[in-house]
């Protein structure tokens, strides 16, 4: 649905790599162009009209994000470069001062690199233990497993809402309750879910949350860190500079601004933030429930049709997200992806930045189709036809 809002599809491209990034509707592109052509100025700096307009727009997006994720206050919304920066701020700005040697942090092997490598790096310094919760036979995470492995030393559970590699949707309500009951900080990576289903930080007792704009129709290079106010107050900035200080003097004394500006040093990605605002407007206009329901229906259609194709192995057909992993016979996933490119079909091949999952899932490399609301049954039909001609896959090697 709404495919006509995306100029890129005029070129008949079939884009099935939405877990990597999403396409941008005209309204998002226009919002960015408008900033660059009609009111370019820095934020929080000037006393002239266009600068004030920038402030209004930029801070307006903060309010939009606050409502979008149901935060208590706009001060809990920090604009970042993306999820990766958000997670690095959580780990190196907060956890570095909070965690002690004997503490435990729970992750899974299905997490994205950005929710593993910061923890591993800090753990080497402080010595806290990282426990990887076991995944069930279908590679999903069950709440019972978390209940079993938490101890009185567990201080943090940090998980993706939906994993990019297998697309399983985590039971965040139950996990949030478990964390609350046990005084555990719940960190949620909403990167893969935020543009696909409602994410409510209060309802799910989320303490920290990160996401990237570009996976929800927005521009690259901008994202959000959400933290409960009392936690963010204790988060030490990783960057110092303009825009975040009140005063500084040659005796080495300085004072910093309050939230959220204390954590936004330097000139921010203003155009990006404005684009994010337009993306939120666009998503809310369609409705996240409508988007989610459409994606689930489309995935069912994809699964039914792909089962008509011989030699297909599916890895995650039961999950309620738009991600489907498969392999075609003995063909190497990249050969399949390059073959599909001849049909203008864009899919991802590889291990999808969750490299530890190789230890769990039996195949190291898979083809991944990740759907979004602008994908259609007709596009899936083209994919199925291409896969039915699988004896042509290696024709593309020369």
């Amino acid at each position: 649905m709404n495919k006509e809002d995306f100029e890129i599809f005029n070129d008949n491209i079939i884009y099935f790599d939405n877990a990597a990034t999403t396409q941008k509707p005209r309204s998002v592109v226009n919002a960015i162009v408008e900033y660059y052509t009609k009111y370019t100025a820095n934020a929080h700096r000037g006393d002239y009209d266009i600068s004030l307009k920038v402030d209004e727009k930029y801070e307006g997006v903060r309010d939009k994000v606050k409502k979008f994720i149901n935060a208590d206050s706009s001060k809990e919304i920090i604009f970042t470069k993306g999820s990766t920066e958000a997670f690095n701020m959580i780990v190196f700005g907060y956890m570095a001062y909070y965690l002690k040697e004997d503490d435990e942090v729970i992750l899974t092997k299905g997490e994205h690199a950005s929710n593993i490598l910061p923890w591993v790096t800090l753990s080497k310094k402080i010595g806290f233990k990282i426990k990887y919760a076991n995944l069930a036979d279908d590679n999903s995470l069950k709440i019972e497993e978390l209940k079993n492995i938490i101890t009185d030393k567990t201080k943090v559970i940090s998980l993706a809402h939906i994993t990019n590699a297998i697309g399983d949707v985590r039971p965040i309500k139950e996990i949030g309750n478990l964390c609350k009951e046990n005084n555990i900080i719940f960190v949620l990576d909403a990167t893969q879910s935020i543009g696909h289903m409602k994410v409510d930080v209060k309802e799910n007792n989320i303490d920290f949350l990160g996401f990237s704009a570009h996976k929800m129709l927005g521009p690259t290079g901008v994202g959000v860190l959400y933290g409960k106010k009392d936690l963010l107050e204790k988060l030490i900035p990783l960057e110092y500079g303009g825009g975040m200080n009140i005063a500084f003097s040659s005796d080495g004394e300085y004072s910093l601004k309050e939230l959220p500006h204390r954590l936004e040093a330097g000139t921010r990605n203003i155009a990006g933030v404005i684009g994010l605002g337009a993306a939120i407007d666009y998503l809310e206009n369609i409705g996240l429930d409508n988007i989610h329901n459409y994606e689930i229906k489309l995935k069912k259609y994809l699964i039914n049709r792909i089962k008509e194709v011989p030699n297909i192995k599916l890895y995650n057909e039961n999950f309620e997200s738009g991600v489907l992993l498969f392999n075609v016979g003995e063909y190497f996933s990249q050969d399949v992806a390059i073959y599909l490119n001849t049909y203008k079909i864009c899919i991802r091949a590889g291990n999808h930045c969750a490299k530890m999952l190789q230890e769990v899932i039996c195949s190291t490399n898979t083809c991944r189709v990740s759907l979004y609301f602008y994908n259609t049954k007709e596009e899936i039909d083209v994919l199925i036809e291409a896969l039915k001609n699988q004896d042509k896959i290696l024709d593309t090697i020369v």
Partner: protein
Amino acid sequence: MDVKLKRDIILDNYQNPANKGLPNDEAYEKVNSRNESCVDNITVAAKVIDGKIEDVKFDGDACAICTSASSVMTKELKGKSVEEAELIIDNFERMINELPYNEEVLGELNIYNEVYKQPSRKKCALLPMGAIKKIIDEDD
């Protein structure tokens, strides 16, 4: 060389690669190589004695181009001196990167002379060369 013949040779080297499997022998130096898009993952092992590549093998999980190029590379480099190997590698890289090159030294590696037409395949073809380069560079 016509396209069908090239394809047949590539497919043959993909489906029945030569010199595949790593030796359990400390005389071999091993280098693992992966490409940026997280897909191809191969290890090349070579035994270099007195400036000569006595033996070279590879193993890994990779696409048709990368696997077959690894196979053909091992066949072409086995028995060559390090200098000869460097000349072959340099000309192969030049061919893939669309620079002037000497096809005379490339032997069967000439079957990859159209890989440049598929930019996404270039890094696959170059991956085994990158690994062997690390081994012989260290040997200089």
